[in-house]
């Protein structure tokens, strides 16, 4: 039964993903065309005359009707071609393949940090609910939500990179080139990114755990003579695992978006820098390509989450 329902979920999700992808890319494309600004002016260069701009528009097919341009893009995508940047002629797939690992590394690292710090804090706060420890943890967690990550990033750089010289202040190194280099470059941005995540994990975990720990079921477990730590770690956490999974998947999506600012602060050539630069210049093949990739990632992530729900709690079908 489990197997067939899992297969069902996957197929249903994949079918749902198609209109999501088309709609998302169409809306972004429409937005790029609707807002003022014209890439032809950028392409024509500093000295451009009106005639030259018109010529460029024709040369790059920018004078075709809106739907024709979108259709042409979609047609290429269906044939596995994300086309090339209008600005720099780099293949969009090449850009994404190079930028995405940088972004993924700091997001995953931030995620690991958020969980590694957030889970113990949340458990500690919940198991001593109402104590000074609980209050202290919740205060820190509130701060974590309130602190802007770019500001935290700059503070971290000032301390750990400029003053102490422990870690690099800017840039990124691909994992394939040097694992140590990649990690040392990723630690500070990941910390800046993780602060909000730590706070969120802590708060969510605490409130779900508090609810579970005050339930009838836990009272029964106490009555059975189970030790408090066994109740907390074996029964408590198992019951909040679904909630935690929801928090994790939402957090992951949010961190992917939040890297835009952190990447700028740390000069990381990731997906955020890629799409910002492209959007400013209306380089729509690149914007479209990044949006397309991001939608795919989010859809895949949600799919994995759904499957895990099913594993953690078979009642969710």
């Amino acid at each position: 039964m489990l197997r067939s329902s899992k297969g069902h979920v996957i197929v249903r999700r994949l079918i749902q993903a198609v209109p999501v992808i088309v709609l998302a890319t169409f809306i972004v494309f429409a937005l790029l065309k609707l807002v003022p600004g014209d890439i032809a002016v950028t392409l024509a260069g500093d000295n451009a005359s009106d005639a030259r701009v018109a010529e460029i528009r024709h040369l790059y097919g920018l004078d075709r009707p809106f739907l024709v341009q979108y259709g042409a893009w979609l047609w290429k995508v269906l044939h596995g071609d994300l086309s090339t940047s209008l600005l720099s002629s780099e293949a969009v797939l090449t850009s994404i393949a190079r930028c995405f690992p940088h972004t993924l590394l700091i997001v995953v690292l931030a995620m690991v940090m958020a969980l590694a710090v957030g889970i113990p804090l949340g458990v500690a706060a919940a198991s001593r609910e109402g104590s000074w420890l609980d209050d202290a943890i919740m205060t820190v967690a509130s701060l974590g939500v309130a602190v802007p990550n770019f500001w935290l990033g700059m503070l971290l750089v000032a301390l750990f990179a400029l003053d102490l010289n422990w870690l690099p202040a800017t840039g990124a190194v691909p994992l394939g080139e040097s694992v140590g280099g990649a990690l040392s470059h990723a630690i500070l941005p990941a910390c800046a990114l993780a602060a909000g995540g730590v706070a969120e994990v802590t708060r969510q975990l605490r409130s779900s755990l508090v609810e579970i720990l005050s339930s009838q079921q836990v009272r029964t477990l106490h009555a059975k003579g189970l030790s408090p730590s066994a109740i907390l770690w074996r029964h408590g956490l198992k019951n909040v695992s679904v909630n935690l999974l929801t928090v994790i998947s939402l957090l992951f999506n949010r961190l992917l978006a939040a890297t835009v600012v952190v990447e700028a602060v740390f000069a990381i050539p990731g997906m955020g820098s890629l799409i910002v630069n492209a959007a400013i210049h209306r380089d729509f093949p690149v914007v479209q390509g990044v949006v397309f990739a991001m939608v795919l990632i989010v859809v895949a992530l949600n799919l994995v989450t759904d499957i895990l729900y099913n594993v953690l709690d078979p009642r969710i079908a």
Partner: protein
Amino acid sequence: MTDGNFTIGGPSRRDILLLAGGVALASATGLPASAQEAAKKGGILKVAAPANPSSLDPATGGSGADHSLLWTIYDTLVEWDYETLKPKPGLAKWSYPDPKTMVLDIEKGVKFHDGTDLVAEAVKFNLERNRQDERSNIKADLTSVAAVDVTGPLQVTLRLKNPDTALPAILSDRAGMMASPANLKTLGADTNRKPVGAGPWKFVSWADNESVVVTRNDSYWRPGRPYLDGIEFAIIPESATALRSVTSGEKDMAFSLPARLKPVIDRSKQLRMIAAPTLYCVQLYFNYARAPLDNVKVRQAINFALDRDGFVKATMGGLGEAATMTLPSTHWAYDKSVSTLYPHDPDRARKLLAEAGFKDGIEITMGGYNDQDSVQRSEVLQAQLGQGGIRLKFTRGTIPEISAQFFATEKKFDALLSAWTGRPDPSMTYALGFDKGAYYNAGRECDPELSKLIQQSRESENLTERAAVFARIQRFVMENALSAPIAFQYELDALAQKAEGYKADLLGKPKFENMSLG
């Protein structure tokens, strides 16, 4: 100070650290960097560059920020003097046997990076491509050229439609960057990312928004050059981050930084600061083809209401030069007599407005950009003009968006707060900004007298004679207040102590040819 640059800095903490480790042999002498032996060879210079290049093909690119990268790969037919931008021979020496003929005599034995010879045929190929290819963005620079003839193995003769003595300066820019014809022919339309030139360094790689890497050209035609084995550009658009990369020692240099970062550079002991004037002029563009700025008195009122020195202090931390015309005071064609036309005089501004029929002041719609520096400029401007009775209604947006709305077909706003990035020859500045139909002349109209003067400025080969014509042009433009120049931005660079030999240039587009690592 004699070279127009001033350098600020002291012994670096890193130097001291290195000394302690016994590594810094060169600085162990205790002498300042300038007193040491001639430039050392070798080493890779790591540079934070402010923008991803638009293309590494000089003909198809469009951004003024490309030049610093292009100059490492391509040598130009003509070069310029760093301080005044006076043209001087580069790959070629030029002469004008008559006003409508320009002869280029090419340096002997120059080779492109692919081993092919840089001879007359190659120069002809490049010039023909630049002026005719449909992908070329610099056709407008070479409109005066009627034909390019090969008149010797190392000699090219340009037949001109009309006298054009701006050509030497034009050939010091994109149009004069020589690319390997063999490479261009193989690449077809795919020339943006695989550059082959004859410059001091060869292209290695370009990853969008990340890096551009070049390595030494061992068969470079200038003996003993370049000093550096290579340059690695990291593209860091966020200027504060770029500066941090130098402070932390990851990069050796960051260039074209905004003035607001000057205090940060000052604070950092391990950095040297270079600041020097450039042609980059923050200014107001007017659409003077329609009301209310078709009235010269209103335009003059704006010029009188501007407190240019105050603007430099408030928005540039003092790192700038008040602009009284479109050329800075160090430029070879600068004319001092024009500089006194518009002293700061808000009362005079109000009087002019009243004469123009705006007794209670006037409201002007103005476009502006939404980056941090532009917003600050617009606020200072609003306050200054307000005192002269000129109320500004700002619309802000991204640079391409607002610029297109003002200059292209929409014709929004009466005026635009923007900048002129400067051109190697002043005649280009006036032709592109004020001549009839020019893109940067939003109203597209031009007084025939000015058109004639612009043409005349390209007729003599003699710089003194040309300067005299430019003086008349500057006077005409400023007396008619066709724009309101405000301030020239300084080129601001932060360098690690070991990065030596750098000098800023008046064009504001750094060259790295004289640099070495100490």
